[in-house]
């Protein structure tokens, strides 16, 4: 009887020792929550693929700090409530060390209270300025904000001497917050908004709104949105024979837009990340090697790159670099290191984080490009 007790005790002891030994080589856990399905799936899908690609490559090279990296991901379907639940699950049940993600602004904004309460670094891939303004201790973002896109468009208009603009936007989150920025920044750039039309993102004809715009004395049309609708707007403009310059947002900086809009896309200008025009950049450009490398890797595995996958690339590399510098996964140290990111060359631009700026990009991160002969051309 007593000898059996000993055996059991010994077994328990060995298990405990074994457990504590194996925990030393436990993987570093990076959590993510993306809209891989649902209306924002064309953003979330390349993001997830990029994360899997980067982490797979790094693990093949031996991992990070001598440990493997494990990616834990949940699909929110673009639903903010799901995002909140999954982030709680990442923090409490999966015990992740850092979170890279949040495809849409809504998803990210929804999880901020929990992130701040639990104290875990979050690098968001979404656009809205509200994510980092005012600055939140644990929240960073790597995607261009809508305000930058608007500033860039207005800047280009000013250079061309155009001041009267007509807005046409959809009813999605991206469209709405873009419209807000367009209205807010207009006085600063001396722009006068002479028309402000809206459509539903599932509409298939916007000629009614565009006819109204034609009746005004607008000198340019700005359409802020993503998906099918902007292509439809661009086509309708051509069909109605409106000859005004057309500006789109960075939301359409993908080959799909050119394919959908066809000839009508010729001459359309938009602010875009350098990724779409990587080959045209001068060789001296700091970003060029990074962009080409990401593009080559991604396209070898999955097909054409998108700037959104690029945001995931920036986010995860920034997280990995910070963990490397911190030489641990201590959440507070890693957070401090992310805040100290300086001169980090990503696909979106060159990042310089400060305690006051948790995005760290400047207007240079955007290039104004024009669609010519079914391709992109830098016009600056």
């Amino acid at each position: 009887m007593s000898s059996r007790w000993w055996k059991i005790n010994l077994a328990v002891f060995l298990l405990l020792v074994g457990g504590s030994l194996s925990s030393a080589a436990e993987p570093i856990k990076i959590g993510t929550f993306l809209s891989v399905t649902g209306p924002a799936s064309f953003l979330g899908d390349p993001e997830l693929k990029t994360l899997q690609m980067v982490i797979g490559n790094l693990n093949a090279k031996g991992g990070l700090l001598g440990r493997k990296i494990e990616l834990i991901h949940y699909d929110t379907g673009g639903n903010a409530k799901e995002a909140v639940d999954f982030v709680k699950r990442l923090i409490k049940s999966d015990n992740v060390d850092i979170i890279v993600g949040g495809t849409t602004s809504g998803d990210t904004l929804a999880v901020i209270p929990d992130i701040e309460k639990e104290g875990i670094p979050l690098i968001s891939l979404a656009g809205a300025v509200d994510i980092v303004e005012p600055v939140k201790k644990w929240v960073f973002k790597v995607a261009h904000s809508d305000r930058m896109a608007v500033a860039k468009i207005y800047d280009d208009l000013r250079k061309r001497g155009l001041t009267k603009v007509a807005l046409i936007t959809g009813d999605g989150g991206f469209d709405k917050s873009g419209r807000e920025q367009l209205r807010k920044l207009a006085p600063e750039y001396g722009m006068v908004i002479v028309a402000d039309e809206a459509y539903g993102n599932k509409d298939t004809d916007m000629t009614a709104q565009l006819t109204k715009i034609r009746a005004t004395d607008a000198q340019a049309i700005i359409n802020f949105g993503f998906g099918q609708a902007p292509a439809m707007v661009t086509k309708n403009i051509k069909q109605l024979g409106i000859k005004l310059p057309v500006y789109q947002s960075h939301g359409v900086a993908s080959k799909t837009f050119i394919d959908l809009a066809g000839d009508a896309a010729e001459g359309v200008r938009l602010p875009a990340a350098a990724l779409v025009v990587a080959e045209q950049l001068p060789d001296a450009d700091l970003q060029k090697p990074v962009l080409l490398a990401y593009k080559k890797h991604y396209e070898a595995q999955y097909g054409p790159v998108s700037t959104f996958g690029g945001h995931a690339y920036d986010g995860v590399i920034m997280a990995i670099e910070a963990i490397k510098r911190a030489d641990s996964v201590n959440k507070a140290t890693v957070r401090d290191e992310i805040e100290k990111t300086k001169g980090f060359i990503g696909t979106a631009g060159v990042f310089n984080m400060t305690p006051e700026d948790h995005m760290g990009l400047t207007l240079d991160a955007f290039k104004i490009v024009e669609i010519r002969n079914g391709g992109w051309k830098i016009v600056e």
Partner: protein
Amino acid sequence: MRLVGFYLFAAVAVLLPILFPDNYFVTVVGASAGLHVILAVGLNLLMGYAGQISLGHAAFFGMGAYTSAILTTRFAWPGLLAMAAGLLVAGVMAWLFARPILRLRGHYLAMATLGFGIIVHVIMVQAMHWTGGPDGLAGIPPLNLLGWTVEGDQQWYGVIIAAMLLTIWLSLNIVDSRMGRALRAVRGSEFAAQMMGIDTARAKTQVFVVSALFAAFAGSLFAHQQAFISPDSFNLMISVELVTMVVLGGMASTFGAACGAIALTLLHQGLVVFEDYEMLIHGGLLMVVMIFLPQGLFVGLSQGVRRVMNNSSIVLRYREIVSTKLSSSSR
């Protein structure tokens, strides 16, 4: 005796966090399930007992949530007062819509409620100035209950479970009241119910309002618990999901609805590990349940258990012994 099931249910709900303290699947998923139970139990009064379908129930859920959220964030109202306002808004809206809408039957009623749900959703998206638009409304303050601020998942679990038990208890009592009997009569045959002297229009209006109040109550709690709300928590898909919960658990059974709500919540959390196959398995399971247990999970299973109990040899033997003893003693 009538409330045995209720006490059992309450005991399990209370014991869970004690057995598994600070466990994600108890506190967070449990709280979600609790809110779904409130919604499903409310909808079941309308669907299961009164036989009226609503494909726009998320609208009332949203009204409660947005009223609470807007009043507390923009006008600094205390949480409980805002919650009362949310109940009032949803109740009055339901009352106004009930009369014209509940004249319709079957598909037409489904269409009307569907339209209502979509209109409310569009308002949430478009009235940016009030609702924050598609990106949602953030910074909703925590709920303050007479000086006690509800914070953390564990405390929220407690509050939501208490609210859930309250609604289940209310529902059980409504079902056993004159109103409940009137509703069942309406479902059986509206014409016959009228002949029996039941004011059917009034009965239907009442149950529509009660069901909206349950939803708005859940909405207010949801807004404070999440501290952030956006229109996609109140869209058509959510309404459909609520109907699924009621049907899955078993219509015309309060515990059936509760069971369906819990089952769907857990199913969703359990299936995320299958990633791409999640929706496939989800749909498949629902089909299997509906084919083999058309009365719903809870109702079907409990009937099955009862049938087995009635027919199994042990039970029969026991009955025999009891009856012979009884007859011998009476002799």
